[in-house]
C-alpha cells in the first residue's frame, strides 16, 4: 500500500486560509490503513478546522480515492457533491488520489498529508518500505527480498563495507538486508544465484511519469 503521514494541523489550517467552506475527503486504502488519512482522521481534522472557523460542508471517503469510478459514477458522485458545496477540498488521500480529485473538480484541492512510500503493514503499527517501483524487479534472485528498496544504497551485488554486525551503516536500527537475503537463500539452498555479477540497472524502466495500459 501507499503510506502517508498527516501534515501538522497548523500547516493544513495555513494552506486552507483563503477558503471558508471545506469538504474533507479521506481514503480508506493506504491513508486509512496507516491511520493518517482515513475517515477517522478526516473527521478529526474536520473538527479541528471547525474550531478554527472553517465551515465543514462534508466529510467522506470513497474507499479508494485513486479509482475514478469511486469518486465519480453515474449513481453517486462524491466529487460533484464536494465541489458544489465547498470553496475547497481537503484531501487526505495519497498524492495520486489527491491529484485525481483535483483534475476532476474546478475548485482548489489542498493536501493534508505527505505521501511516503509503498510499504507493508504489520500489527497495525509498523509500516516498512518494501518497494520503490523501480520497474525491473530482482526479487526472484534475492529470495523475495528487495535490496533495491531495502538497502539505502540499492546495492544489487552484495552488502557494502559498512554492514557491521548485521546492522545497516545508514541506520543501525535496521538490519542490513543482505543478512536476510543470505539467510533466506540458505534456507532455499540457492545461494548460487548470488554468485553471478548483477549488471547495471536499466533505469528507463523507472523514468516517470509511467503508464500501464491493459490489453483489451
Amino acid at each position, binding site marked *: 500500500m501507499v503510506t502517508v503521514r498527516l501534515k501538522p494541523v497548523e500547516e493544513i489550517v495555513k494552506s486552507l486560509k483563503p477558503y471558508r467552506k471545506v469538504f474533507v475527503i479521506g481514503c480508506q486504502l493506504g491513508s486509512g490503513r496507516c491511520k493518517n488519512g482515513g475517515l477517522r482522521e478526516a473527521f478529526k481534522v474536520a473538527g479541528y478546522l471547525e474550531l478554527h472557523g472553517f465551515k465543514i460542508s462534508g466529510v467522506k471517503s470513497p474507499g479508494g480515492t485513486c479509482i475514478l469510478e469511486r469518486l465519480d459514477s453515474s449513481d453517486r458522485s462524491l466529487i460533484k457533491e464536494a465541489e458544489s458545496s465547498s470553496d475547497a477540498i481537503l484531501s487526505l488521500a495519497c498524492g495520486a488520489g489527491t491529484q485525481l480529485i483535483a483534475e476532476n473538480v474546478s475548485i482548489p484541492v489542498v493536501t493534508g498529508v505527505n505521501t511516503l512510500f509503498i510499504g507493508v503493514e504489520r500489527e497495525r503499527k509498523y509500516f516498512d518500505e518494501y518497494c520503490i517501483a523501480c520497474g525491473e524487479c530482482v526479487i526472484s534472485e534475492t529470495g523475495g527480498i528487495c535490496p533495491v528498496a531495502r538497502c539505502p544504497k540499492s546495492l544489487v551485488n552484495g552488502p557494502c563495507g559498512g554492514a*557491521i*554486525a548485521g546492522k545497516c551503516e545508514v541506520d543501525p536500527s535496521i538490519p542490513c538486508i543482505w543478512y536476510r537475503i543470505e539467510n533466506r537463500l540458505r534456507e532455499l539452498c540457492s545461494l548460487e544465484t548470488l554468485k553471478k*555479477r548483477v549488471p547495471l540497472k536499466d533505469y528507463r524502466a523507472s523514468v516517470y511519469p509511467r503508464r500501464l495500459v491493459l490489453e483489451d
Partner: protein
Amino acid sequence: MEFREKLESGQFLITVEVAPPRGVSWEETISALKPLKGKVDAFNVTDCQRSMVRMSALSMAKLLLDSGYEPILQLTCRDRNRIALQSDLLGAWTLGIRNLCLMTGDFTTLGDQPDAKPVFDVDSVQLIEIAEKLNSGRLLNGKELNGKTSFLIGAVHNPFAGPEFLQTLKLKKKIEAGARFVQTQPVYELKIAEEVHSLISSLGAVPLIGLLPIKSLKMANFMKRLNPTSIPPSLIDGLERAKDPVLYGWEYTLDLARAVSEFGAGVHFMLVGKVRELADFIDELRNNRREGP
C-alpha cells in the same frame, strides 16, 4: 618506476591517503607530503570521504601529479551516475591519472550535507566493470572511444563487515571485474592482517593492509563504533596505560606494519599527519627488508 610496475613486479608497496582540502588552498596539503616524496609509492586521493564536501579528488590528484607524487584516484558511486563516472574517468586518464580505487562510498546522510540526493546509480562492482570497459576502448554502451584508457584498478574490502560469505563473494566479484589491488579497512591485529591478506591474494589481487594509528581512547572508541571487532582489548588496555597514547598508537601501528612487511604485499596508511615519522619508518622498513633474507 610507476605504481603499476612496482605492483606487477611484486615490490612491497606503501600507499598513503590524502584528503583534498576543504576549500581552495591546496598548496599546504601538498607541501605537507614533502617528507614522503620518493618513499611512498602512491597517494590515495579521497572522494569527499564521509560524505563531506572537499575539493574534487580529480583536481587534487592532478595537483599531486604535477607536484611529482603518483596519485590513486578514489571514486565513489554516491555522487555520480554512469554518465558522470565515465566522463570523470576519461578526464582523469587524459590528465595523466593512471590508478583508481573504486568503491560504493559512504551514504549522504552520514555527512554534513545530509539533505543531498544520493545517486548510487551503479555499485562498486559495476564501477570496476565500467573502468575495465574504458580500458578496452569502449564506453559502457559499447561505443568506441578515440583511444583507450589503461587504468590500474583497485578496490576496497572491510574484513570486519558482514555477512562474511557475501562480503567474500563481493570481493571476488570486484577482482573478477578487474580490481588488481585491494586496500583494506584499518586492521589492528596481525592474525586478521594475515587472514585478509591470504583471502585477497587467493582471489587474485594484491592486498594492501589498511593501517590507521589510534591517537587516543576516544578515537579507539570511535573506530570501535565503526567496526566493533576491529579493536582488540589489548590495544584499548595499552592506550589506557600509556603515558603518551599518541606515541603508543603510532608504535602499535608501526609494529603491525613491520609484521605485515614480513609476509605481505603492502600497506596502506590512512593518515596524513606525522609524515616525517612515517618517512623515517619507511626508510627503516625498506632498509630492513633489503638486508633481510
